[in-house]
């Protein structure tokens, strides 16, 4: 169905920003990242190789995400058994669990892409913007669990048990986002 006509530069990872060439203005860099990615996209209306990379930049995504977290929190607050600190810690933990699963555990794309499987072993976080670090979506999704952590710490009145829970869950979600851990699989977990 797809004709594989890719030939990328040997020895260069497709998901690393162009380096060692002319210093180009930032806007142009995005276009440059598409130099070696022009392939045949059958049946699609754009020349975007992996639409997953652009999903988080779409209009309304951040708002939907914030509303989703808000909704989760309201649902948890409505349950009569949970006190306010418990509800906040639960929001934080469930949010971080969801973020870890969808951004750092699930690999590949839910649809076939014409990039011959370059993204199959990459998590969604690693696919964002084709591996370019420090883009606005990455910054947003790094800051939002931190904000949630601050709020949770405040509302749990810095209680030690809650603190340990919140901090460990924040770390599970912050550490995979570091640029140094791009493509790193510790102990081979989640490699294939």
């Amino acid at each position, binding site marked *: 169905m797809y*004709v594989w*006509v890719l030939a990328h530069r040997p020895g260069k990872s497709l998901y690393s920003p162009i380096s060692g*060439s*002319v210093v*180009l203005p930032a806007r*142009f860099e995005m*276009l440059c990242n*598409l*130099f070696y990615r*022009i*392939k*045949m*996209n*059958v*049946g*699609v*209306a*754009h*020349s975007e190789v992996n*639409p997953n990379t*652009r*999903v988080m930049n*779409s*209009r*309304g*995504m951040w*708002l*939907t995400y914030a*509303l*989703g977290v808000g909704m989760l929190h309201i649902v948890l607050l409505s349950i009569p058994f949970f006190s306010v600190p418990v509800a906040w810690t639960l929001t934080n933990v469930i949010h971080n669990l969801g973020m870890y699963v969808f951004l750092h555990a*699930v*690999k*590949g*794309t*839910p*649809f*076939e892409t014409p990039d011959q499987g370059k993204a*199959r072993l990459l998590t969604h976080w690693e696919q964002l913007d084709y591996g370019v670090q420090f883009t606005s979506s990455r910054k947003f999704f790094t800051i939002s669990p931190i904000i949630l952590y601050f709020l949770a710490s405040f509302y749990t009145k810095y209680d030690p048990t809650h603190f340990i829970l919140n901090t460990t869950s924040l770390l599970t979600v912050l550490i995979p986002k570091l640029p140094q851990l791009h493509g790193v699989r510790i102990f081979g977990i989640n490699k294939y």
Partner: protein
Amino acid sequence: LYKKTFIEHFEQAPMYVAVLTFLGFGVGTIFGYLRDFMRAWGLEKRNVATEREQQKDFVPLYQDFENFYTRNLYMRIRDNWNRPICSVPGPQFDLMERVTDDYNWTFRFTGRTIKNVINMGSYNYLGFAETDVNALKTVTIELQKYGTGICSTRQEMGTLDKHVELEKLVAKFLGVEDAMVFGMGFATNSMNIPALVGKGCLILSDELNHTSLVLGARLSGATIRIFKHNNMQSLEKLLRDAIIYGQPRSHRAWRKIIILVEGIYSMEGSIVRLPEIVSLKKKYKAYLYLDEAHSIGAVGATGRGVVEYFGMSPDDVDVLMGTFTKSFGAAGGYIAGKKDLVDFLRTHSHSAVYATSMCPPVAEQIIRAMKCLMGQDGTTQGLQRVRQLGKNTRYFRRRLHEMGFIIYGNDDSPVVPLLLYMPGKIGAFARRMLEKNIGVVVVGFPATPITESRARFCVSAAHTREMLDTVLNALDELGDFLHLKYSRYSKSSHPELYEETRLELED
């Protein structure tokens, strides 16, 4: 630069629509995971092809996750695509009725045909998709005379007098020196761009270019840079950077810079900004390759394409390419331009060397359609068709704008994408339109950006005013029912009411 106003709309829907779209996809994804879980644990029947038990320990044959979207979202609304038809796809066609017993995993035909479904999906711009016996008489004669196929390439034995006649006619139609025709429209792009550019050249191609252009560019070995869709500032920036910095590491000048654009983009309905591109190309000394697949025959006062639409001369464009599939009711493509260019292509094009040439009955169909358009068959039917298409296009778009739908594209383009946004509405829209006896084409993610699923209408010259009114009334009802009227700039949804209040106030 522009002799008439160039109006293009790409209105954005209100933010709540985007949020609801993402919620829709989110719910679909969660249910997808749930169903996958149930299928994995045997609580639900597995309908997809799976490996045998003995193969489970081997490396998997295919990725389950890559099929996630197909399994869980596409399958739910699969009955809206690939519908079998049993008549010629003219302005109306007959569909074979099919039902599904297991939620679109398998279909079966009931044996009935749904007759006279209004066809809003075929690229039948001038209405040449017809089975009128008198109209196709010459084609049948040629079929008897020449047979169905030519088993040879252009350079060996495959050039017939029909091809020479057709090429002369195409050149005359477009107002250029010479033309060459190829058997396949897709192959015209993918086989000729490699002949024109090679390593050390630069290709500047639009964001939304068709697959054939992308493939041709990729096969050529040239460097490809993409500019934002129809955005002249982006193109100018790329041109300036290319000329200032040259090739990536050696900084030598580029051997050739070629700009690849299309006349009408089929998913957006936008028309290329040709005057600005031509002035840019002249300023920076680049070449221009214009793919008029959808625009030849469909725009322009006499159907000569975007060059005529903007009142420019065909000498401004270096390579004029087009297909005969859309407006001429045939198959194949052409490349036209200066005689030197076409002679070069006759010797160097991959298609001329390796691919079989166009078959004679198809060539005769194109000749007949083109003669009709040029008025050489003695009637004004060709011009009437072009005028009717223009009228239909303007009427259809104006009414849709008035109703309050969000439509993309230029006011003069016969391709009309109507934005649906939410994944649930894609299926609902297509199914309900079929119930009202109208066939439409819908597209969703990942073929379009995630928030911009759309239904695409292709207006045809063969559509009568009554057919368009039927479609518009159905769209009106459906728009109210499905809440598709997101436009904030609609002129007036009920102009007759406005008239009444004005009379009342005058009292």
